[in-house]
């Protein structure tokens, strides 16, 4: 009897530095980095986390993707800086006087630090997204015993992002094909965004609903243990990283409680 070749979906393995790391391990590392960005005081936390994330992204060849995430965060970054620069409560060291407004040094300092923390923790999470396929993440969560319904919710939420982007792009193309000028000035581009909201949101919800029904029709809720089609790698390096992350977490909390760097 000849063996049927397994489909690519089952046998495909991620390759490359960090990309081949177990998704669960990457989630734990990212969680540790998020905690470190907030628990370590002053500039140390964000600086250490940003350095670690950037170095990993560089070796994993995901720097460009990370830069896109940074660009997407720029409106929040800008607003945090502005609010703190001008409105930090109790700040009394003005940089200059601009009529009724007085930007302060302490406001600028605090704003920059807040932005650094924000970028550190968001880039740690973004790196997981950039180096992990949804299939692998869900398969690993399933292997670790997370409930099927929870996995479906996670999967639907994560998959909704690219689907929504794709749908929005197509609707925008349809608008352009029907004469809406979205090229050139920014207000022209903005005009096309409002009509997108309805079909994009309702379409995404409808798709999730349809997928739920399709899964139910294929015995999604049936009792019993399911066989995993693919099992993500969980090798020695993954276990080492996991333990190292847990030890680092204990050390982090210890340092924070002892207040040596506080």
């Amino acid at each position: 009897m000849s063996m049927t070749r397994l489909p690519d979906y089952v046998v495909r393995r991620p390759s490359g530095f960090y990309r081949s790391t177990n998704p669960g391990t990457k989630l734990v590392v990212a969680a540790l980095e998020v905690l470190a960005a907030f628990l370590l005081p002053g500039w140390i936390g964000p600086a250490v986390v940003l350095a670690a994330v950037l170095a990993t992204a560089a070796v994993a060849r995901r720097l460009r993707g990370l830069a896109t995430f940074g660009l997407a965060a720029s409106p929040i970054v800008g607003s945090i800086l502005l609010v703190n620069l001008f409105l930090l409560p109790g700040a009394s060291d003005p940089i200059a006087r601009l009529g009724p407004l007085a930007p302060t040094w302490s406001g600028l300092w605090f704003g920059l630090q807040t932005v650094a923390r924000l970028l550190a923790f968001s880039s740690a999470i973004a790196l997981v997204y950039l180096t992990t396929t949804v299939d692998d993440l869900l398969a690993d969560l399933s292997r670790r015993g997370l409930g099927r319904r929870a996995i479906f919710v996670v999967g639907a939420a994560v998959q909704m992002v690219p689907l929504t982007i794709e749908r929005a792009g197509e609707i925008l193309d349809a608008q352009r094909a029907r004469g809406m000028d979205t090229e050139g000035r920014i207000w022209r581009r903005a005009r096309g965004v409002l009509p997108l909201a309805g079909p994009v949101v309702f379409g995404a919800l409808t798709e999730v609903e349809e997928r739920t029904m399709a899964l139910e029709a294929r015995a999604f809720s049936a009792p019993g243990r399911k066989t995993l089609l693919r099992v993500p790698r969980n090798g020695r390096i993954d276990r080492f990283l996991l333990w190292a992350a847990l030890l680092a977490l204990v050390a982090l909390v210890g340092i924070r409680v002892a207040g040596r760097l506080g």
Partner: protein
Amino acid sequence: MTSPGSNPRVPPAPGSNVPGSIPRVLPHVPSIEVEAVSFAYPEGTRALTDVSLRIEPGETLAIVGQNGSGKSTLVRHLNGLLRPTGGRVLLDGADVRPVHVAHLAARVGLAFQNPDRQLFAGHVSAEIEFGPRNLGIRGAELAERVALALAAVGLESVATANPYDLGYSRRKLLALASVLAMRTPVLILDEPTTGQDARGVARVQDVVARAAAEGRTVIAISHDMRFVAECFRRVVVMRAGRVALDGPPSAVFAEAAWPELRASYLEPPLPAVAGARLGLGATPTGGAVVAALAAGPRNR
């Protein structure tokens, strides 16, 4: 072999007056030239390789091919939604590359394959108004265009309904109407008969026939070989991003071309197969088979 005129669905000569047709005054119909166009998507997928076509004003052209053969990618170059990575697309001899899509939209109308990714207005009339409004049409002319477009696809009774309350086939017809109302001299339809019942297919066929009779260029992507054979004077078969066959239905669906069609995962329409088996020659449509049989053995 049959002539296009022997088939009632094949559009009459360009410029003839058809009652109930949408445009009163047809704008200048441009010629379209696709010159050695290649295109690769940003992630690296090569969708078109060195595609060259010349489409004369008023021509009816069907593009067929298996999924992923580059059909939709090709037509998105004709209205500027995609810009070639190699080669160029010319409208009346002018390169479309520097022209905004919004400006090209006045000349090349494109109805997308999936209606759910192009409908966004709160009700059917507003959806149809969207395109003409962007072209600066207002008042009585706008109302007339909406009414005629609704009539062309048989949606007059649902003018105030929400598009998403309509069934799939009617949403598809609405997407077609929303492009018809723009009265573009070039009309491109991506899979217009998919999801349509026999009545819906007949409506689409009428729309194509009327547009062609008005002298407009009609280009359609389709997997429906019967629709293609009956409504279009020219068929382009695409395979792996290249043009594999290009000619009238009688040539593209002739027995000699079947190996090429099958290599593109296409089946010739049933009348073509029946005609070949009966020794009637190239008979891409049912009408052509009947005509060949009626002509008797001496004409075979």
